[in-house]
């Protein structure tokens, strides 16, 4: 079950909202939310529910043990072992197949392979589990003695499958005490519908352009494919995040934004403050800062950046393309810190935005490719190396057909729609609310028309 499926929109979501609002007692409210969350998870993969329960129980017990240990050395060991088991689970599911295939390709270790599908949301909920252990170990939050509360933190359906990776200490107050406010629900509805529109009206349509152009070998075709993917990935994941954050408001959860107009960033560093913010924060708080962050010598700073970005690349998947993609950003961030910042500060903002977008766009070529050779071939086609033509009839046809969509998508990447909404609210006073409600209602019906016509695609980040 995904957020864009009719069964979620018309059966699951209304049912969980109604049941949750009928209950006033907090433990029962959490129990209702947990049962619905487990049902949501089991719908996609009943077998993987066992792993989700095992991880939750593991961190629950680890938390209790960490509280008991008074010696700091023992606590450190226990924390390390508890985290190691979680990382091992992630490794076995996500990376072992890749490692074995490397040996296999070298003619070694021929007799073993792993046949396991990736459990839904494993990278996201393992990172949530690690966040709990780290918060307890670093005493950012107390040990959770209520298993139900901890289970809600890990399994809550609004974030279990694709994030956002909300840190435990941020979510804890709302797990223990929250109230459903009408105003929050109203804002939540708007954010949910905005996310739905980003996904169904933009991302899913851009995916058609991407899949049509991804094998085109002309220069124009290669550029169209890369642009379509950059935009699709943004509207897909930011759309999902808006839906998750919006629906969470119904249950009294206030999650921070996961995207902040990333394609208007004026440097690579700025981009990563705006893209997948919850993941960047996770790496910053639990890896980068404990390593010393930027308050260390130059060599250690370079080491820290390389480690964090190598891990960010690896987190996204077991493929050389993700490793190269992570290191690509590490190099750009180091270049910006040591050389480029002098120039970027003097350039006009629009030039900086263009420069950042080009770097990001090239980065997504590695991200989307099946292999390094495919990524390099696509990059080659973009600059005319190995391309069959500057533009062929197919690429020209798709450019002409999809130009309006590309323009609307480009505008939607900026603050323009948000500013328009603010303008409506301030200028039209009484008329603004029914007008906005009408606009959102039209968007909703448009989305429904596309969902029921089966053009809706699955979310890209499910793969991670």
């Amino acid at each position, binding site marked *: 079950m995904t957020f864009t499926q009719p069964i979620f929109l018309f059966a699951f979501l209304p049912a969980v909202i109604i049941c949750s609002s009928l209950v006033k007692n907090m433990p029962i409210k959490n129990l209702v939310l947990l049962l619905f969350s487990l049902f949501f998870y089991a719908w996609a993969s009943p077998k993987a529910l*066992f*792993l989700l329960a*095992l991880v939750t*129980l*593991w961190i629950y*017990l*680890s938390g*209790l*043990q960490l509280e*008991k240990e008074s010696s700091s050395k023992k606590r450190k060991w226990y924390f390390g072992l508890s985290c190691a*088991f979680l990382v091992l*689970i992630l490794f*076995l599911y996500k990376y072992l197949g890749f490692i074995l295939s490397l040996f*296999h390709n070298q003619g070694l270790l*021929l*007799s*073993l*392979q*792993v*046949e*396991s599908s990736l459990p839904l949301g494993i990278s996201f909920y393992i990172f949530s589990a690690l966040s709990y252990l780290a918060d307890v170990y670093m005493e950012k939050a107390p040990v959770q003695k209520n298993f139900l509360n901890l289970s809600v933190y890990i399994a809550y359906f609004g974030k279990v499958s694709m994030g956002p990776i909300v840190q435990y200490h941020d979510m804890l107050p709302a797990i223990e005490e929250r109230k459903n406010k009408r105003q929050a629900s109203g804002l939540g509805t708007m954010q949910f519908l905005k996310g739905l529109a980003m996904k169904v009206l933009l991302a899913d349509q851009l995916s058609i352009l991407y899949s049509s152009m991804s094998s085109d070998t002309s220069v124009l075709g290669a550029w169209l494919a890369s642009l379509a993917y950059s935009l699709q990935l943004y509207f897909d994941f930011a759309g999902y995040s808006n839906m998750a954050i919006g629906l969470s408001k119904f249950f009294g959860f206030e999650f921070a934004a996961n995207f902040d107009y990333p394609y208007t960033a004026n440097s690579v560093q700025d981009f990563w403050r705006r893209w997948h913010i919850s993941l960047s924060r996770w790496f910053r708080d639990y890896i980068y800062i404990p390593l010393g962050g930027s308050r260390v010598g130059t060599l250690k700073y370079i080491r820290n950046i390389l480690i964090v970005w190598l891990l960010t690349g690896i987190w996204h998947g077991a493929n050389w393309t993700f490793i190269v993609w992570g290191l690509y950003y590490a190099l750009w961030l180091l270049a910006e810190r040591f050389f480029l910042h002098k120039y970027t500060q003097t350039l006009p903002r629009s030039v900086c935005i263009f420069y950042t977008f080009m770097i990001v766009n090239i980065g997504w070529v590695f991200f989307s490719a099946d292999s390094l050779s495919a990524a390099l071939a696509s990059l080659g086609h973009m600059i005319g190396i190995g391309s069959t033509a500057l533009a062929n009839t197919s690429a020209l046809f798709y450019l002409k057909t999809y130009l309006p969509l590309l323009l609307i998508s480009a505008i939607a990447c900026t603050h323009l729609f948000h500013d328009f909404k603010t303008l409506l609210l301030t200028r039209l006073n009484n008329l603004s609310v029914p007008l906005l409600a009408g606009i959102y209602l039209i968007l909703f019906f448009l989305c429904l028309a596309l969902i029921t016509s089966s053009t809706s695609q699955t979310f890209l980040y499910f793969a991670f």
Partner: protein
Amino acid sequence: MIPNPFKDKAGLLKDKMAEVKKTNLPKNPFPIKNGPEDTQNLSQPKNILQKYGIPVLQAGLVLAFVFYFKPSFQSIKPDSSAAFEDVLAAIEEKADAELFPAQDEQALRRYFDLDASDYENIVFLRQDDALSASEIVLVRFSNNDEADQFQETMQERINSQIQVYEGYAPEQAGLAKAAQIEVNGNYAFYVCADNASELLQSFDAAVEKGR
């Protein structure tokens, strides 16, 4: 108020039980040197449980995970050096020659959207009769990474055949449902036939000869 006739008796019984308990306590085989150390020794079993209870439970969780994950490991069969012609001959020996004439590469593209040049060897056996679901594909990979894609393509074919025949030829749909796909080292075999299991056995035996 009526006095309770058992009250005194009950009180006596309580005192007596306390006395029995006291006298029946086992004697400590070790002499007491000082009080606090002795009480620590007496409560040791409880402390062990308290101290190691959580790690023991967690060890159980690790074991549970091992059993849960273990089936994911599969052993890869090594490549076979059996000649493609020999494996094909072994299959054709058990197959009805009328039902399974060899098709050309164009048919392979038309029916499966497969390019013969992608594989070291590939053969497609089927009648031109559209009313028959029976068909065979035997392939030898040049690279074992091709196996997953091949399996997917064959599975798609099975699904589409089931859909095609379900409406008007239920027995052919049944054949398609019982179709088998097997990857064995550098060989793979797709079979949709009355005697699919028998053909599969012949395939396995012929491939095994090359190991």
